[in-house]
């Protein structure tokens, strides 16, 4: 199959639609997890969901998406609840609590999965797609299930927009205003569980948390508004989801989860490097420019100090002196050339000397520093 078949091929269209949907939901809701510094919660939730899937299958014998996802949601919710209880009732820290829940639930899930695979019934095969995801197995009924769960979560996010902002920015203040922040917290957690659960079949429990964290982290780089961040994170989630799912569905033996994560990594690294204001490149250029400006200024001031020591006598100073005065920082010549361009210094046979304009400029700098 060719990735361009997305426009004609029915299966590919279904897969893309599903991946886009889960990208939008997990990207949007993941933004709140990121802003509340609970990104790892998604990881705990998704790993905790695995035993739920296995148990749902064991109890019902059904592989209907709604049944399995419901099992996943209950287990994911239980895991989260467990983390909250451990934090509240014991002195175990949040990261340890999440680590414990994540590994215990996931381990249990793996045991159950192995057990199921050894069962004689033939229908069990296929549950292991929940580990790393298998977009190619997405069918229309799966996508419908995802929509039925995911769209209400998005709707709730819109309805409770200002309450969620309060919860994320200043929870206690929200409490004093009379908004039940504990309830908002529970609601947001439930929505996050939904966002994770609907991606399990496509991305898998192991890597699903990337769909929650990465689009939000990338989006934060580009915008300083919560609304912009949520929209952009949804967009990044959808793009990565669709391209990852389509790539893996059109190639043999390419698990979807890892493929999506590779695409996401490109988006995240690109955002880290190239985003204006917050990006590394921008910061590098800015600090580079600043240090150049400071260096030019330092050379000018060094020349001024030298001229003061020689009581105004217009005497040239060799570049070696200036280099020694700049403590071995390079670029003295470049600074001199820049100063020469501004006509603040001139080169004489014996070295460099301040012009009258340069002297005035240096005096001005000295005045600034005193005030």
């Amino acid at each position, binding site marked *: 199959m060719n990735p361009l078949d997305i426009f004609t091929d029915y299966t590919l269209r279904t897969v893309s639609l599903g991946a886009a949907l889960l990208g939008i939901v997990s990207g949007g809701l993941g933004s709140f997890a990121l*802003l509340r*510094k609970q990104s790892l919660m998604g990881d705990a939730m998704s790993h905790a969901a695995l035993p739920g899937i296995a148990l749902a299958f064991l109890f019902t014998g059904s592989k209907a998406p709604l049944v399995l996802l419901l099992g996943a949601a209950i287990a994911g919710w239980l895991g989260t609840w467990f983390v909250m209880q451990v934090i509240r009732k014991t002195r175990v820290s949040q990261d340890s609590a999440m680590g414990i829940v994540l590994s215990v639930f996931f381990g249990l899930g793996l045991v159950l999965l192995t057990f199921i695979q050894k069962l004689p019934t033939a229908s069990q095969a296929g549950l292991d797609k929940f580990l790393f995801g298998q977009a190619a197995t997405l069918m229309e009924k799966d996508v419908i299930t995802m929509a039925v769960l995911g769209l209400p979560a998005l709707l709730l996010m819109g*309805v*409770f*927009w*200002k*309450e969620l*902002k*309060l919860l*994320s*920015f*200043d929870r*206690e*203040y*929200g*409490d*004093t*205003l*009379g*908004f039940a922040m504990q309830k908002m917290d529970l609601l947001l957690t439930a929505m996050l569980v939904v966002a994770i659960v609907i991606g399990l079949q496509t991305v898998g429990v192991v890597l699903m948390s990337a769909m929650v964290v990465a689009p939000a982290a990338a989006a*934060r780089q580009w*915008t*300083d*508004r*919560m609304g*912009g*961040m949520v929209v952009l994170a949804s967009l990044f989630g959808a793009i990565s989801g669709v391209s990852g799912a389509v790539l893996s569905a059109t190639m043999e033996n390419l698990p979807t989860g890892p493929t999506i994560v590779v695409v996401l990594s490109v988006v995240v690294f690109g955002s880290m490097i190239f985003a204006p204001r917050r990006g590394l490149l921008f910061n590098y250029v800015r600090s580079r420019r600043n240090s150049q400006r400071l260096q030019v200024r330092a050379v000018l001031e060094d020349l001024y100090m030298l001229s003061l020591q020689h009581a105004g006598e217009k005497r040239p100073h060799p570049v070696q002196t200036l280099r020694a005065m700049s403590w071995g920082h390079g670029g003295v010549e470049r600074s001199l050339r820049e100063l020469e361009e501004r006509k603040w210094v001139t080169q004489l046979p014996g070295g460099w000397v301040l012009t009258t304009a340069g002297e005035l400029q240096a005096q001005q700098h000295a005045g600034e520093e005193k005030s």
Partner: protein
Amino acid sequence: MESHANTSISGNVPAVEVNDLTVAYHEKPVLWDIDLVVPQGVLMAVVGPNGAGKTTMMKSILGLIKAAAGDVRILGEPYDQVRRRVGYVPQRGSVDWDFPTTVLDVVMMGSYGSLGWFKRPGRQQREKASAALERVGMEKFAHRQISQLSGGQQQRVFLARALLQEAEVYFMDEPFQGVDATTERAIIAILKDLRKANKTVIVVHHDLQTVPEYFDWVTLLNVRRIASGPVEEVFTDENLRAAFGGKVGFLTKHGHDEHHDASHPVSPEANVPEAGS
């Protein structure tokens, strides 16, 4: 609304009344049997050493920390019923200032309470927020991303947000902590305005020197309530020593002689920044 009419008729209902308030963390009491009556229309400082429970008292009055025992009334009613008439300025360090939002947006949060669930702020709220920003001298910063603010500017944004609540009783947690002179002046001006409008303001304060200058009422706290009342009656060397132990090398009554009390050992604790008390 009925209760509102009640209090304006009987103007002598205290702004805040606390009885037997006790708070404990992990079985260790941090506030012990606090009784407090704050009349309406005063500016009250809450002072005490680090770990004395100043912030805890404020938060438990506001229901943010669960009290082990005790009863709190604000304007004669349980807090739940008068929320709309109470404003709160938390410590500015309690939030993430890198949050993706603007100054105006943060100030508008002060209108959320009167909007209630679901409703979004509109033009009216935006105008009020702009006016509040003007009162704190921050109107030029309305559309700035909040991470670009200095500490003092952050404090003024929080103050503007509380002003938007149009409350009758204000609780402010360390508003003067580490702010610049402009901000300090702005806060003082606002406090005076609020007093003129017969509002009550309760301020957790750490600078003993300025208590008599800024406030007319004071509560000295150190796990227990040491004293509470008008500054000129209560803010005495004796009470301060009772609240701070022998640690006070900077008592205020003797003017600028900051270290007159050198005979008392100055504990290093006195300089340790407050750790979430």
